[in-house]
């Protein structure tokens, strides 16, 4: 079941540009206090191991351009390990990534236990909600902090929240709210919703319904697109789709936008330009909300994009950014604590003043009530960034980022 991915740690030695020169002793341990170090030859290097547990199997997509890269997410973590190590070279800290891969439907407990045995105190999880819940409490018992970088399920932040599970991936409700705010800002308020027949499609559809209610959109009609198990790609190509999709959307009442909820990649890509009446498409196809956009160059984004592309030979995706952010959070805490004491790092991350910079124009902080990272949502069309939410005018008494997703008064999370 478990297969260790080759080249886990070795890959990053090359990111060590410097002779390590850092302080012999650093007395201060209080949170964002600052110290100056004189650069002297370093003898001791502290190692900080970060695990990456991922469920992976090759996936198909309606468009070959959308097939997830083999190293999706892991590449983001590795880039952040490189960044942490550049900083660590001044402080005598070395970060190591320990990647373990399982199948999407596998029991992840044995693999996770092995990671714990190898000394991983921080584990990035890119696994399903069910898999994550199967290890969350084992992690808690072993003092392991989990960073959820893959699962957008709201339930992991609500009914099934855990105090030792932090979330750098946004939720479906955050994504849906980010999209809905933009459509309302555009005054495109009448929506039809086409959703897939799989569980995750229906969860995203539910998030879109909730967003409509919150921000004043109106879903005038809904339709389910059943997955009949057809092949994703065939030699006869688009001939049938071109005829089928107009017919499927012919009976919908008048609307401004077609919303699509098809995380399963069964039909969504086929909706734009094929509807009965000419209307923009948004959701999992057309204008899509995401945690990151491969074309974002705002807010210093050019630098991380260049660095990522140079190291990995492809553009940076949302999961890469969620993983980059998680590894940087550990790095930031280790830099400023400073040291490798997991209890101190944990306390630092959970302190009121903790924040992380992630090329999104403002500092990102955690929602204390469920340990979800607040973050702006990108809206893009596959080529470029169209906008970022929260939109102007959506106000909040604490943080405008809390207009995205389930807010504190509504939360069902209760830590023991």
């Amino acid at each position, binding site marked *: 079941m478990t297969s260790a991915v080759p080249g886990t740690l070795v890959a990053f030695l090359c990111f060590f540009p410097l002779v390590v*020169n850092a302080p012999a002793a650093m007395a201060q341990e209080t949170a964002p206090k600052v110290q100056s*170090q004189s*650069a002297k030859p370093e003898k001791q290097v502290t190692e900080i191991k970060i695990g990456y547990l991922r469920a992976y199997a090759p996936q198909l997509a309606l468009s070959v351009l959308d097939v997830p890269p083999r190293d999706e997410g892991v590449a983001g973590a590795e880039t952040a390990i490189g960044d942490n190590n550049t*900083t660590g070279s001044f402080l005598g800290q070395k970060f190591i990534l320990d990647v373990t891969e399982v199948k999407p439907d596998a029991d992840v407990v044995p693999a996770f236990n092995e990671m714990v045995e190898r000394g991983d105190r921080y584990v990035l999880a890119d696994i399903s909600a069910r898999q994550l819940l199967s290890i969350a409490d084992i992690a808690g018992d072993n003092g392991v902090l989990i960073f959820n970088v893959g699962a957008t399920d709201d339930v992991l932040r609500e009914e099934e929240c855990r105090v030792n599970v932090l979330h750098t991936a946004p939720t479906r409700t955050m994504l849906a709210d980010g999209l809905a705010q933009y459509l309302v800002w555009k005054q495109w308020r009448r929506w039809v919703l086409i959703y897939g027949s799989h569980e995750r499609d229906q969860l995203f559809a539910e998030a879109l319904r909730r967003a409509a209610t919150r921000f004043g959109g109106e879903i005038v009609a809904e339709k389910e697109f059943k997955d009949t198990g057809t092949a994703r790609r065939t030699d006869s190509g688009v001939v049938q789709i071109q005829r089928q999709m107009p017919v499927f959307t012919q009976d919908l009442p008048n609307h401004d936008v077609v919303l699509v909820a098809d995380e399963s990649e069964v039909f969504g890509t086929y909706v734009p330009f094929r509807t009965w009446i000419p209307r923009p498409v948004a959701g999992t196809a057309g204008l899509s909300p995401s945690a990151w956009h491969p074309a974002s160059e705002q807010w210093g984004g050019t630098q991380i994009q260049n660095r990522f592309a140079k190291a990995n030979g492809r553009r940076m995706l949302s999961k890469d950014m969620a993983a980059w952010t998680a590894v940087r959070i550990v790095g930031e805490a280790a830099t400023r604590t400073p040291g490798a004491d997991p209890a101190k790092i944990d306390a630092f991350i959970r302190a009121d003043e903790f924040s992380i910079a992630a090329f999104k124009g403002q*500092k990102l902080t955690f929602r204390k009530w469920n340990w979800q990272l607040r973050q702006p949502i990108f809206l893009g069309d596959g080529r470029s960034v169209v906008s970022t939410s929260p939109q102007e005018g959506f106000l909040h008494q604490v943080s405008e980022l809390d207009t995205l997703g389930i807010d504190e008064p509504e939360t069902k999370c209760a830590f023991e």
Partner: protein
Amino acid sequence: MRRLTILAGAVAAGLTASPASAYMVYVSNEKDNTVSVVDSTTMEVVKTINVGQRPRGITISHDGKLIYLCASDDDTIEIIDTATHEIVGSLPSGPDPELFVLSPDGKTLYVANEDDNLVTVIDLESKKVLAEIPVGVEPEGMGVSPDGKTMVNTSETTNMAHFIDTSTNEITHNVLVDARPRFVEFTPDGSEAWVSAEIGGTVSVIDNTTREIKHKITFEIPGLRAESIQPVGVRITADGKKAYVALGPANRVAVINAETYEVEKYALVGQRVWQLAFTPDQKTIISTNGVSNDITFIDVATDEPVQSVTVGALPWGVVVSPN
């Protein structure tokens, strides 16, 4: 006609009528690949120079004859003759140069190369690279002490100010500051280095002897969220008494008592304030306002904005001729 406008501007700002000497203000416009030349007296654009791609950091030789300009996307530093406004040469900058600082003796240029985690040291006479110094992730801010002995670079993702001995080109101290440090400015007596942190929202005042933070300046503007206060450019008056900090999307320049570190005023300028430059007589400080495509002249005596002038698209850096 022109004279009338100037007079009106002067009266409105409550200035005395004595004519200031005319300086040339050079503004790099990040988006449209130009440098706007603005007359500081008439406050009008007198010339627009076409330059390389994505011009950002800009400085001028001490004799005022040459402008050095980071053309970030062309991976080069362009040299512009101020007499002819022609590009007369280039420097081997290393990839993606963003900001740089000229040594006090005018002989050496220290350049931050954002993409390569390097500071490049360039000898201006020979146009040769003297050294490449590895620093933290995304080097950006560059400052040099008035005696030329210490150069400071900030790295935006590592969140450090790296103190570098210019005689050895080696890092001697690394000082952790708040998130995304953007700019370094030494006090005129060389006793302090001020480092702005864009995402952290602070300015750290670092003691240049102990190389420790002695004070952290924070900002508070009623009606604005803390997240929108993003300090970038910093300038300190020659007498060391006042400091100006550009606050990015807060659309304001903070005026700080440089002796007590108290923020005394917030001057409202244009949108997304990036960088600042004094006129040599120190009577005026000029801000570049990235989103509103203009620059604002602020009267240093009153700290009131006098006039905004439309320049090119996304103005970024600014430098004023010394004569």
